[in-house]
């Protein structure tokens, strides 16, 4: 998916500016890191992409279509092509790990069996093969993070949006997860990751979009020599 943001601003009431005049283009099949300090606007930017928020100004084009104009059904169709990893995970508490992951495939029409086989496979890849039956609240932060990633990947999305996907896990596992994201990118998907983990960005050398107090300070490099306070 190709993403274009044109003069996008977002202000929360009463006058809290989260993003200001963002102009950005992400090509199809690109892996991009969005980085910045807490409150820089990373999560807001991601939420605009899958229409959890609407911009106060500007337009957001995904594959040439302005997503800000989409109606309810259009938003649903858009979200079916996107895999989401939220910072706060968002699981259905009544379902176990396997069913939480499988549900994302079932809402798109996969049968219970198909979706469970796929969920099984993904959870195994992510080192959670002993946790299928556990309820989300029984998992550690890192485990929940991996379940969220499995759910985002189950439909092989054309766009993967991840908000701090490796925030709660150790370096080895973070590497495995990044390898998975790279694999997804190599299959042609666009991957947008918000992170403040400098080491991760350095290792993968993808384009970095730096945000500072709602403004893009650099959107074209993979240079990570940024002032320390951003991190």
């Amino acid at each position, binding site marked *: 998916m190709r993403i274009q943001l044109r003069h996008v601003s977002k202000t929360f009431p009463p006058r809290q500016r989260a993003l200001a005049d963002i102009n950005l283009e992400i090509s199809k099949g690109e892996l991009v890191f969005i980085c910045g300090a807490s409150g820089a606007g990373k999560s807001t930017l991601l939420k605009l992409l899958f229409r959890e*928020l609407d911009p106060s100004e500007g337009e957001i084009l995904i594959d040439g279509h302005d997503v800000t104009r989409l109606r309810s059904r259009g938003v649903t169709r858009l979200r079916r092509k996107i895999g989401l990893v939220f910072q706060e995970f968002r699981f259905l508490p009544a379902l176990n790990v396997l069913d939480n992951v499988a549900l994302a495939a079932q809402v798109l*029409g996969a*049968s219970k069996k198909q979706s469970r086989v796929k969920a099984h496979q993904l959870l195994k890849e992510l080192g959670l093969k002993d946790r299928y039956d556990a309820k989300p609240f029984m998992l550690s932060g890192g485990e929940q993070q991996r379940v969220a990633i499995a759910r985002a990947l189950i439909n092989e999305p054309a766009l993967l949006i991840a908000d701090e996907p490796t925030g709660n896990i150790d370096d080895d596992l973070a590497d495995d997860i990044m390898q998975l994201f790279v694999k997804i990118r190599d299959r042609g998907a666009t991957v947008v990751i918000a992170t403040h983990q400098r080491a991760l960005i350095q290792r993968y050398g993808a384009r970095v979009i730096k945000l500072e107090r709602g403004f893009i300070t650099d959107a074209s490099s993979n240079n990570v020599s940024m002032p320390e306070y951003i991190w």
Partner: protein
Amino acid sequence: MKLSFIGLVFRQVRSSLRHLCWSHMLTSLTMALTLFVFGAFMMLQANLEQLLMAWGDQIHITAYLARALEPTELEGLLKRVEILPEVERVRYTSQAQAWNDFQSALGAQSGLLEGLPHDVLPASIEITIKRGQRDSSTLEQVAQRVRGEKAIASVEYPQQWVERLGLTVLAVAWGKWIVGGVFFLATFFIVGSTVQLALYARRGEIEIMQLVGASETLIQAPFVLEGMLQGMVGGALALAALWGGYTLLREQIEGFAGALWSVGYVRFLDLEGAVFLVATGWILGAIGSLVSLRRIVKTWRSSVVAV
């Protein structure tokens, strides 16, 4: 809807019933309380209609004969009255029968009649009008036609009583729709609010479904099914509570009603009434869920998106 979606919807309902058992029971109980009041009103209404019908059954037109008639003449007269479209039945009372009836009515004071000739009272025919046509204009029409018979001396019917009963029947019929409508609306809003509260508690669930790309139908279907179930259980509980209350208090109510209006018995809801009560819960549960869900989703969407 695809078969896999139907399966998913039922699995979600089953999971919700298992995990949110207490919340569902609380919602059903609140619905049951509201439906109990509605059901009690239905029972009151049914008994009031029964009472009015019983009162209506006591309304007759009495036509007094001018003279004693030959059997063939009498038979002809009775036939001519009986075939009138408004007439339900006709009963002949001879002079001797009228005398006996009068004596029995006087009871211990029947001695007052001693010395009077037994044919002092005229023979008469008692005309009962069909149910639903016992209004003052129909009675007057029939009375006019009977007055036209040569053998009839005079015709009487309780005109004032008929007019009052007519007004009461009209008031009860209007009351049924107005009060019933108000009760129905109140039930609808209470059920709707109950469902809405239950849904607010599950806001996160709906948001997650929206974010993973579930269609509106897929999001709403389990909640509507749950609403139907809650409504049906609520209706059944209300019906059971009404039956319990009726069985326990039947004698006291009948005694009270008997003293006030000479009603021999108080009846419970008939089969249609009982089915209607449960169906009302079922339908209100479904509509309440659907309306609340749409309102909630719309509010969230506008609160999230329009800032």
